[in-house]
């Protein structure tokens, strides 16, 4: 071996006292250093945003746009900036019952820098939260929301330069934000929007979309109306969003992406049409369509599931026993029993409600299956998209 002994041993002992001396000679005050990484993290991902309603606009008989601004008195001085396509989770308490809903931001990212988000909310038939919002949200109402969240965004390294956006009804909201972002120069892609509505009168944001189209040559809007229309209006297609129709507007000699946002029924129809086009998976992106209902309508839903189930749930150091319907998600059952559950997307995707299944069986619709591999092994599950098949014993994190 080479001459290790030539390395001096004397250096070691001073190393210990030297280290202490180094500490002793440092300042005894809290260090102050620039840390923009943490500043960015906090600015883009606040735990909560406390907002106030500044304006309410009825844009259709069953659809309202709410303009939300910061509520500095409650601690929100500015809004978190966001990428077009993101959603906010709204936190409400309805008759003592905690309730959350995720709504795409319909305004542009640029507006958020000026202290404005717009949420456009459609009244859902029999919908508890949208009904509550329609009845109670007015100018001045305080609203608590999450940071902008979600993955439904244009990503230039992944998506094609040309994007066919397929919207159904109030599924227009993220696309309106994206179109504005393109016009503002904050996003760079060519958008062809095929927007399905029942009839001409039902089209949401018709004028805004027209203006955007005029203002920016990267945006093209085509309305697709399922009901008969009066006259031939320019830029209108009749029927549904079919493979043929997509082909008609898609570029012929270069790749294109397809983005979808709309109700569950639209996805069921359009997904079959998209199959005919044989696009690579990477070119098709779905926004979540919100909470899933009626699991028993699914082909793989088992038979003989009891109507009523018992759930034993532990949150921190408290254990509760609640009863509910097997047609409701575990999250809904807990909320109806007034147990707050950590909730964000309500579609399985965000993973925020990640909980532990100790015993019992659950049903998760295939397309909402976002469990990780080790979750299957160790009982991790997402209450928002899991339906009880038997009595359950679960551990749920605190809602904060």
């Amino acid at each position, binding site marked *: *071996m080479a001459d*290790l002994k*030539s*390395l*001096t*041993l004397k250096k*070691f*002992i001073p*190393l*210990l006292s*030297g*280290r*202490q001396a*180094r*500490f*002793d*000679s*440092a*300042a*005894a*005050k*809290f*260090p102050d250093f*620039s*840390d*923009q*990484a*943490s*500043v*960015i*993290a906090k600015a*883009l991902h606040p735990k909560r945003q406390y907002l106030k309603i500044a304006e309410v606009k009825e844009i259709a008989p069953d659809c309202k746009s709410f303009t939300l601004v910061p509520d500095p008195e409650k601690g929100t001085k500015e809004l978190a*900036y966001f*990428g077009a396509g993101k959603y906010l989770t709204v936190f409400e308490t309805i008759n003592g019952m905690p309730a959350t809903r995720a709504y795409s931001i319909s305004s542009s*990212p640029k507006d958020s*820098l000026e202290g404005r988000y717009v949420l456009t909310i459609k009244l859902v038939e029999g919908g508890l939260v949208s009904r509550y919002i329609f009845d109670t949200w007015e100018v001045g109402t305080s609203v608590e929301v999450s940071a902008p969240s979600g993955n439904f965004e244009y990503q*230039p*390294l*992944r998506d094609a330069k040309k994007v066919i956006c397929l919207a159904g009804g109030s599924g227009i909201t993220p696309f309106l934000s994206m179109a504005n972002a393109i016009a503002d120069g904050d996003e760079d892609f060519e958008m062809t929007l095929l927007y399905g509505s029942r009839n001409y009168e039902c089209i949401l944001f018709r004028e805004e979309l027209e203006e955007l189209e005029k203002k920016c040559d990267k945006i093209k809007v085509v309305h697709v109306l399922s009901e008969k229309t009066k006259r031939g209006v320019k830029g209108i297609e009749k029927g549904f969003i079919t493979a043929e129709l997509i082909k008609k507007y898609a570029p012929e000699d270069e790749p294109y992406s397809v983005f979808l946002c709309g109700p569950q029924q639209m996805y069921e129809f359009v997904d079959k049409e998209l199959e005919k086009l044989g696009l*690579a*998976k*990477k070119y098709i992106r779905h926004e979540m369509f919100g909470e899933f209902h009626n699991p028993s309508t699914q082909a793989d839903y088992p038979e003989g599931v009891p109507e009523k189930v018992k759930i034993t749930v532990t949150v*921190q*150091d408290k254990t509760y026993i609640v009863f509910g319907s097997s047609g409701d998600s575990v999250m809904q059952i807990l909320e109806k029993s007034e147990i707050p559950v*950590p909730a964000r997307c309500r579609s399985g995707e965000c*993973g*925020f*409600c*990640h909980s532990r299944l100790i015993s019992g069986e659950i049903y998760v619709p295939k397309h909402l299956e*976002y*469990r*990780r*591999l*080790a*979750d299957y*092994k*160790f009982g991790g599950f997402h209450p928002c998209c899991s339906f009880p098949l038997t009595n359950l014993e679960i551990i749920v*994190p*605190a809602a*904060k």
Partner: protein
Amino acid sequence: MKKYDVIIIGAGNGGLAAAATCAKAGLSTLLLERHNIPGGSASSFVRGRFEFEPSLHELAGVGSSETEVGSIEDMFIRMGGDVQWHTHDSTFRLVVPAKEGDKDTFINEDGVEVTVDARMPVGFRNFAKKLNEIVPGSYDSCMAAFDLSTRMFKAFECLDDPSKLPGSLKDVPDIMRMTSHTMKEALDTLGMPKKAQDIFNTYWCYMGSPASQFDFLYYMCVLHSYVKNGTGIPHMRSHEMSMALDKVIRDHDGEIWYNSEVTKVIVKNGKPAGVVINGEKEVYGKYFICNSYPYAVFKDLFDKNDIPAKQLKMLNARKTACSLTTVYLGMNVTKEQLGIKDYSIFIAPDSDSDKQYDAAQNYFSNYCIINCLNEIIPDCTPEGTCQLFLTTMTFGDVMKDIEPKDYKKFKTKIAKDMIETCERALNISITPYIEEIEIALPPTFARYLNTPLGTPYGYMLEKWDSMLPRTIQYMSDQPFDNFFFCGASQERGDGYGCAYYTGEKAGGIVVKKIKGGK
């Protein structure tokens, strides 16, 4: 009111190991975590049809036929944590593409002009032989280094009992020599040619400090383990390891509360007595183990008057280690179609590790590690696909000129640069096949780990503040006699094994204080 024997703040690797140790010893144990899943960096996330590994590059010492005492697998066996391991018979491949004016370049198997292309095998002799092939005359010095590290591991056992130190270390003077000198000093003394040293030092980036700063002993710990055992990976991403420890803790009646952020430490009579959770709920305990960083803890959880002066001085004396940038890619083609043949490829702008470090002071310096998990776990993604992750490191506040509104574009730009660096260095095409992409920059790590500058690596292991002195002075570094730190901020710096080690050790200290004995 219930008073726990021990409250553990943070369910990162250190916190999980600490909680498992305490719960197994029968202490009433409460583990608090602000996120909804365990693990901190040791986790996973799902995008489309891909489940990504967020942080783990490789583990040393798992899945081999003989489980070594002190290895990660040994800990999981002792704890009873059920993890399925995969192993791979390689260490790293270092590729240094040629720059203008470089001499001694050649065209490698990928058709790229390079100055270095070293694919290093497992096994001390194999490694030394390969090094000798690339740099003739390096065999003896390489074996001499491994001989020292082999003896060092034997001597390590006495390190776990600091009361014996430094006296008993006099019996193993080589260890003290190794920790008193840098890699360069030691390898020069052993007579290793410069070019061989460059290849030998490839793992420097796993240390979070430049090669001119860390001591020979620290680096040899890491290199020795990887060369001896090869690469190990859990089957279900590192989420499996964290969930396995979560189960161990619960099986031994330990409690874990997720979404339960400690927002204050309650101090009574000059000592921590309890914590406030989510700003509202108080719980009390006798001992505390903290997996969060001293900087974050003293900044947010303590009244200023309750912070011991030494802790403030320590914060000022130390430098925050590096942060990382990682690009996670779900590819719609196989690794064979991409043309990737290695698990772990280090692409460097220069073969000299100190120059690599200097270059990494700027945001992106063409230094990039590319990993392909399918090389170890062929079916970790659906048929016809594979996943890649690209990593580079940064030092200091590299985000200082970036405003939140510009962050998204900046992120994409960095990712693009990293992808293109890999494409050029390996002569492959990546971009057209990206089906899923996620990009993590220092703000991402700051968000999930709550560390200064978004470092996952703790404090820089500089020569004056290296592993051995930190280990010897661990007890006197702690802020209170019932409050112990564990994790990357402590004696061993970053790395899964290091964090588990510090957690288990802190847990052991508390068990001993409560139950007595060893």
